[in-house]
């Protein structure tokens, strides 16, 4: 099987309100950055393009098609889209390359969440008969999950506050972060409850932005002559949409995906986990069995800035950056989708 490598990645700043900047204007700077990294001109120079976005964020059917304006799609290009985080656009692109239909691919994800009421928009992804009519928002569902863990003694509020504190402190070294600072666990615990048992700090912020990545076969990467990291494994698993039938205190699908992606074949030096709520980082790191030898979310993770439909791809890009900079040799990235970590993707990255 052809080995596939990441050759370029760029994430925009994570901002609370991009103002009048539209989606195409958010996408274009990250695209030109990855083209420049690889030394190519535009989307005509890759074999396949796949994007990830959500029409519900823009409030219009087929809104994602407008994103193609950022590509310059004439003459025609091979292009696809997933109504998911762009981490799944990466997955589709890998399949495309493995099938021999392309040697390289451009992947991008974007989300401008600020114009809407994101937690309520997210309620409409739920079961259309039983849950969507209640307008039960994403934060409330995560709060139900957190209380299950607190009640069962699996975590304490201090454990959650420590996740927030580490995220904010790590984010001080991330120029794209939206929330960063020297925040101590006690500072978090001093905050009042927002949606009990969650404090505002336990919840990722609403963010606008985009990210982009270029992948290629190792042969193509060598031809381009740029530093690259190998994608040695990728897998995704989903759990039932019935929240009552899941064990919300665990993430079975993450564990399965990691196993299938080959996480256990080597040391995990760094893990970027897509945990939009503090308690979910604990669920994920326990499900993956991560210990002291693994640095979790050195970027600050999505508690420091959550680009809907792009943050999953950015987790992978963050690990790529650390490998090509020589900081680590091997790491994993996780992406999630759906309420309370319903659908999970794990990617294993290694030094070339």
């Amino acid at each position, binding site marked *: 099987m052809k080995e596939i490598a990441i050759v370029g990645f760029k994430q925009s700043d994570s901002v609370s309100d991009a103002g009048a900047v539209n989606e195409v204007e958010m996408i274009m700077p990250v695209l030109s950055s990855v083209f420049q990294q690889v030394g190519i001109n535009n989307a005509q120079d890759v074999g396949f393009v796949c994007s990830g976005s959500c029409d519900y964020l823009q409030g219009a059917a087929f809104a994602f098609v407008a994103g193609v304006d950022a590509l310059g799609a004439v003459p025609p290009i091979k292009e696809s889209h997933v109504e998911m985080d762009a981490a799944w656009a990466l997955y589709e692109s890998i399949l495309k390359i493995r099938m021999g239909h392309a040697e390289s691919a451009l992947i991008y994800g974007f989300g401008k969440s600020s114009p809407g009421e994101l937690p309520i928009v997210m309620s409409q992804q739920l079961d259309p008969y039983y849950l969507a009519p209640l307008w039960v928002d994403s934060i409330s*569902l995560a709060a139900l999950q957190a209380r299950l863990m607190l009640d069962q003694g699996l975590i304490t509020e201090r454990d959650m506050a420590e996740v927030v504190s580490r995220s904010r402190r790590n984010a001080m070294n991330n120029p794209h972060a939206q929330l960063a600072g020297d925040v101590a666990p006690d500072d978090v615990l001093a905050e009042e409850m927002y949606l009990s048992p969650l404090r505002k700090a336990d919840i990722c912020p609403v963010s606008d932005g985009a990210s982009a990545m270029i992948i290629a076969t190792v042969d193509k990467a060598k031809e381009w002559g740029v530093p690259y990291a190998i994608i040695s494994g990728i897998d995704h698993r989903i759990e039932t949409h019935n929240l009552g039938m899941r064990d919300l205190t665990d993430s079975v699908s993450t564990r399965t995906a990691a196993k299938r992606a080959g996480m256990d074949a080597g040391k995990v030096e760094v893990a970027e986990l897509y945990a939009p709520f503090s308690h979910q980082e604990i669920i994920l790191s326990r499900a993956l069995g991560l210990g002291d030898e693994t640095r979790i979310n050195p970027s600050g993770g999505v508690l420091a800035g959550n680009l809907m439909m792009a943050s999953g791809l950015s987790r992978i890009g963050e690990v790529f950056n650390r490998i090509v900079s020589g900081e680590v040799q091997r790491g994993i990235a996780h992406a999630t989708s759906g309420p309370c970590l319903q659908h999970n993707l794990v990617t294993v990255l290694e030094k070339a």
Partner: protein
Amino acid sequence: MSQPDVLNQAFELGYTYTRSTGPVIGRFLTELRNRNIVGIKASDGRVVVPPMEYDPNTAEELSEFVEVGQQGEVVSFAWVKEPREAHPMDVPFAWAMIKLDGADVPMIHCVAAASEDAIATGARVQVVWADETIGYMTDIRCFELV
């Protein structure tokens, strides 16, 4: 030459079709209209409320309906001190996972409570029906503490 009259056509934006909820969800919603709650037996015998069409673990088609109680127990809850405009209540309330009597799997709905202190995991709640039931999830207006 005079301009021809502009052609006009009334247009109402809407779906030109109706959608059937099928034998499982449809049965549940019809029972709600009659102020009853039914669940369904999963492959492992657990009673799931609201009923699912297929077992998420075995993919088996499910069909054995079971009537369950209109009271139950709070398994987890989230206290909404600032309700959003779209939320079903305009005063502080709780979202809860509620295991109805006779069910094995909790369902999610809202619970009316005077304050966060009034509700707790393990609290008993009962259904409050809407004034008019129409075969919709919101026929259950909310749950209230017993």
